[in-house]
């Protein structure tokens, strides 16, 4: 036979909780216990409040550029919920919900966007990396981290988050290739929200679905409805079990949408149709989760009112803490450059206020002589 098929594949899409609240019992039973479903819903609403206040802080000049998370919360939250505390979360910058679930103090994210490195000073026990601003570069770190834990015979895996745009970056492909060929248990979690700032996914990828990228690396993959937290949790849990068992990587494409602008410096109306945004507003992860809870008598309007008041109070406290921290001092910028500060840098640090050179005048013979 001169022509034969050497490879064929298909990619599944998983969805459990539909936008209208329809729930697939056969797939969804036991994925999230009722008590946890309530907690997850409350957590997303808290993150919404955080987002809203962060946006206002930026608009009122109390904070720098901020990327709203609204609309995408179910992706990182579902993953953080499904993974274990020993697993690393290697994030991009729109994963507040997952980071806060893991235990990152909310003040840290505000401090980061307020231009203070202490926002990235994270307890290493939390096993989260700081927000990654360049696109796609953090995926390699996730592979290295999972590799280090595998080397030390730990069953920890890593999960790295990135968007559709990041799948065009070289580092994305290098990370996928390293993990696949060296058997590193990293979960590549793509949050495909349709837009990389103003550029649609069609310009990043001409394959029918982004998850096809994983097929090229021989990697197990699935597409999920990223606004369906049940589907996200199930997919991540299955992937984690597979990774712990085989020490191989996996890839999840979660389709979602950012309801806000890329950042506070962006105006998405310039490139997105109002109808498209409206359509996605109907698919908002919180609307369907609330329907799910209400159908089961786990939620009602009075609980909603009580929770919103609590969220408001919590976020106000977080803002107070972030704004109340002692401002950094100039010397701080020198102190963490190296484990111990080299002599030359010590001199700059010591004399930054006394010399234009940042050098110790007493050590400059020319000035000594000029004085005498």
């Amino acid at each position, binding site marked *: 036979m001169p022509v034969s098929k050497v490879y064929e594949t298909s990619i599944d899409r998983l969805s459990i909780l539909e936008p209208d609240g329809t729930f697939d019992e056969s797939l969804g039973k036991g994925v999230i216990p009722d008590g946890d479903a309530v907690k997850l819903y409350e957590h997303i609403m808290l993150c919404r409040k955080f987002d809203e206040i962060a946006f206002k802080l930026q608009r009122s000049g109390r904070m720098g550029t901020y990327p709203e998370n609204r609309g995408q919360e179910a992706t990182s939250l579902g993953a953080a919920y499904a993974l274990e505390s020993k697993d690393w979360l290697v994030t991009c910058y729109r994963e507040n919900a997952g980071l806060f679930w893991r235990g990152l103090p909310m003040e840290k994210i505000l401090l980061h966007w307020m231009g203070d*490195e202490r926002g990235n*000073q994270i307890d290493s026990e939390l096993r989260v990396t*700081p927000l990654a601003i360049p696109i796609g*570069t953090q995926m390699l770190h996730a592979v290295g981290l*999972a590799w280090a834990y595998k*080397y030390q015979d730990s069953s920890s895996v890593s999960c790295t988050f990135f968007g559709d745009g990041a799948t065009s970056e070289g580092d994305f492909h290098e990370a996928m290739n390293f993990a696949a060929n060296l058997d590193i248990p990293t979960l590549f979690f793509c949050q495909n929200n349709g837009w990389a700032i103003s550029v649609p996914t069609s310009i990043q990828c001409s394959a029918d679905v982004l998850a096809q990228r994983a097929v090229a690396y021989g990697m197990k993959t699935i597409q999920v409805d990223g606004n369906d937290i049940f589907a996200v949790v199930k997919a991540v849990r299955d992937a984690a079990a597979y990774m712990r068992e085989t020490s191989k990587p996996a890839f999840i494409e979660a389709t979602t949408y950012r309801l806000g602008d890329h950042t506070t410096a962006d105006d998405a109306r310039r490139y997105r149709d109002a109808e498209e945004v409206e359509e996605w507003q109907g698919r908002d992860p919180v609307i369907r989760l609330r329907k799910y809870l209400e159908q089961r008598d786990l939620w009602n309007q009075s609980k909603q009112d009580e929770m919103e008041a609590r969220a408001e109070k919590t976020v106000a406290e977080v803002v107070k803490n972030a704004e109340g921290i002692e401002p950094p001092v100039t010397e701080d910028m020198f102190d963490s450059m190296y484990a111990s500060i080299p002599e030359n840098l010590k001199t700059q640090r010591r004399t930054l206020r006394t010399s234009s050179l940042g050098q110790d005048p007493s050590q400059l013979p020319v000035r000594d002589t000029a004085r005498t």
Partner: protein
Amino acid sequence: MANLTLVQAINLALIQEMERDDRVIILGEDVGPNGGVFRVTEGLHKRFGDKRVVDSPLAESGIIGTSIGLAMGGLRPIPEIQFEGFLGPAYDQICTHAARMRTRTRGGLTVPMTLRVPVGGGIHAPELHSDSPEAIYSHNPGLKVVMPSSPYDAKGLLISAIRDPDPVIFFEPKRIYRAFREEVPEDEYTVPIGKARVVREGSEVTMISWGASVIHCMNAIEASGRDIELIDLRTINPLDYETVMTSVCKTGRAIIVHEAPLTCGIGAELSARIMESCFLQLEAPVQRVAGFDVIMPYYKLELDYLPDTERIGKAINEIVAY
């Protein structure tokens, strides 16, 4: 003591550190059974196995990016980039992440990684196998940059680099990989990062160099018959200004020799510092003997580009006559 080449001294340092600390692993292109294109990792794969000497996919950014993760995860990775000309794809990971991780997390996450890279010209290699980019990585805060000029220093500096809590770029001058042998102690020892070495004392001129050029400086000094002090920086960043300034303030004359292009080279920074610290002691302008501001030529012209004994000799004559 053993009489070793620079390659053998590096190989010995790698073996000893891997035996001492099982967090140390090597990764890169062809570093496994093949022992690296320069055979620096010869025998290590056999000795330490697949888990610790890893042939990686052919991707420089991937090698450094995963090394950053390995280091943050508690290991002491030693990635190898095959030639300095291929550092380009890894530049982003080196400067955007490795160099910044400690300070941007205020000490929360650190990258104790030793990046080994063969460097420099003079071996009739193909295009992009002969450059000297040490100034680029020294300009970028957060990295340490080291370049030995002898087997003894190579072993001691590499051990220091591997034990260093911060990212170190360890440039290996390929021209002297096998050019000569030197007595190297078999026991472990360290040469501190950030300390220059006075190779030869003298009173008339201070000559400052590093890497393979140190040999040419020595030859030029001997040919000149002058009483010249020779300093081998050994570490480019952080630079040991104290040793340099003490010497130049004593001699009043300084010649800096490096393979990298003249403009914005380390020589430029050094001469500015000398001017600041030794202005009144200077008897002549600081002289630089460097690569020209051209793309490193293919090997038919590489010896015309590289500072050699003759050009260094001219600098000696000029600075003494000034």
